[in-house]
């Protein structure tokens, strides 16, 4: 990899009582890359996202984020909203939209951390606030167009189809202008047609230079999208490499076959 790393995680460990959900995990993502994080259910993938985005406080380990051309900043101990401000934005495995808000408003919430207007601005509606509001609208609408939901913009988020809700979550995360986009099983529950559309969408976003870290179970999707793959099992990293290397890695085969034999 010639491009510089954006996200660097080292020795990340997370204990829940007696359970070690993450065990000294190292991971890195470089700019413009699509990196996949895979592993059997309960391996700790979602916990990994929760730890680096500040929702959980990891027991040990370091997380750094490096903006392109900028200085490396530590994300340790930051609150989730600060992490998002620094440039990590995520979607959720179990969809978490603002269901009683419109589709457009959901994306507008994503603009929150890039805008400033507060009480006085809201009440007085001075030119600066109005300009900012207009910018929020335009950017949010553009995000909806990008994920193909523009014509649904005035509907309640809860009335969207499952696949559309997942795409809305992506639009909302993109609206925060992340350095790195974290997707937690974006294809879960999608039908084959929707999955193909999703693949197209992720490729499109990636072509625009967006770095992506992806948790996914759909192997076909993972293999066709990823530049590199990390494999976890029981909170540990068991392999890392290009899709081809991963496909032939005996440890990975064992983890996955083992799971199937058990099932």
């Amino acid at each position: 990899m010639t491009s510089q790393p954006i996200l660097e995680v080292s020795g990340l460990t997370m204990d829940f009582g007696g359970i070690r959900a993450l065990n000294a995990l190292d991971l890195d993502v470089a700019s413009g890359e699509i990196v996949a994080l895979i592993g059997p259910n309960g391996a700790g993938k979602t916990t990994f996202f929760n730890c680096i985005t500040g929702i959980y406080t990891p027991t040990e380990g370091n997380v750094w984020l490096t903006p392109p051309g900028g200085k490396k900043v530590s994300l340790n101990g930051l609150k989730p909203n600060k992490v998002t401000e620094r440039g990590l934005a995520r979607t959720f495995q179990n969809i978490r939209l603002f269901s009683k808000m419109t589709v457009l408003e959901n994306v507008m919430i994503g603009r929150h951390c890039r805008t400033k207007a507060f009480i006085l601005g809201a009440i007085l509606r001075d030119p600066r606030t109005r300009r900012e509001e207009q910018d929020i609208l335009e950017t949010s609408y553009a995000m909806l167009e990008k994920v193909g939901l523009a014509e649904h913009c005035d509907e309640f988020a809860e009335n969207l189809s499952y696949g559309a809700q997942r795409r809305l979550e992506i639009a909302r995360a993109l609206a925060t202008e992340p350095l790195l986009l974290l997707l937690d099983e974006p294809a879960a529950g999608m039908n084959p047609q929707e999955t193909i559309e999703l693949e197209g969408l992720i490729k499109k976003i990636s072509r625009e230079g967006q770095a992506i870290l992806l948790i996914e179970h759909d192997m076909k999707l993972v293999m066709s999208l990823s530049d590199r793959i990390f494999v976890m099992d029981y909170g540990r990293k068991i392999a890392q490499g290009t899709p081809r290397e991963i496909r032939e890695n005996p440890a990975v085969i064992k983890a996955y076959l083992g799971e199937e034999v058990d099932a």
Partner: protein
Amino acid sequence: MAVFQELKKGVLISLWFVFLTFPVMVIKVDPIARTVTWRWMNALYMAVGTFIIYTLVQFFIKRRGRSKPASTQKEAGSSVIHRLLDNPRRRAMLFVVLAVAAIAFPQLLSSYQTNVMTTALMYVVLGLGLNIVVGLAGLLDLGFVAFYAVGAYTYALLNHHFGLGFWTILPVGGLLAACFGILLGFPVLRLRGDYLAIVTLGFGEIIRLVLENWGEFSKGPSGISNIARPSLFGMELDLHGSIVFNYYLMVLFVIFTIFVVNRLQNSRLGRAWIALREDEIACQAMGIDKHRTKLVAFSLGAFWAGLMGVVFAGKTTFVNPASFTFMESAIILAIVVLGGMGSIVGVILGALILILMPEYLRGLSQYRMLAFGAILVCMMIFRPQGLIANIRRTYVYKKTPNDAQAS
């Protein structure tokens, strides 16, 4: 067959109601003449009335069940009021009618009526204030009346000891209440839902108990009297003039509050509140500072309560702790819930109905509170979302930046 089943259920329910209301409606004890009259006709009326109401309600529920549930904003918002408000011409007409009615009111009706209306308008403002906290930000605050008390006692004490006037104290009372909001909010807003409700409830009681028991400070249960009425450009007004003046003052207050709350609700901050109500974790993941945003909502609500407290003290010229019981918080909360959480029009209607209804139900004498309760219960059964369900605003956006420059 289904019809027969329904009828049977209706009859049973009617009998049950007759049984429930039997002691009140049928038996009449005259303690002086020592006689008991049995008013059997009342039981019959009760039975027939209940049966008819039940049948009608069932009929409407069936009919509504057949039509599709609203799936988009437009359908959900097609209530009469929203249709009125959506059309600019009709909206302008409605506003003119309301303005004329509001201005003419004290001229046409008695001082008593004006006074009642002033009280109702105060509850409109209180409701709109609490609506920011409960309706928009989703923080269940059961101690709202504490901030109302802070405002009222700020004016009462500063007027009593230093002779400061209404207009000087108005902002002070609001800001002081907001400060109390922040002080309480800091530790408390980490709690969620029920826990927050309990702590705020406790806070409300603490403030009241302090006022009741700290005699040197607040004169205890006997309260503070002879508080100056609001003056009009330094002029002192007679009783009637002052009632009318208070009324117009409250009309202006209501307009001001609607203006501010409406702008807040359609701003970056307002969206953040609503999003927080929906999903806190998603909010934080979208970069919203949870504590700060909640604290702002909490203290803004307190600010309005404080303002109204000052107005209350000026209007009644007397405050004592008995005016700030939990019942007040409960009524203000009922206004917000009944009106429709997060809906400005709903809260206004809710306040007018809840405050004016007991006044006009006085004809029913001892059944007044019973009827009041019954209406509330019915509301919650048949329209749990409140009188006016809040609909989200839709935005006008430019399709592309090029279009934006062209237009």
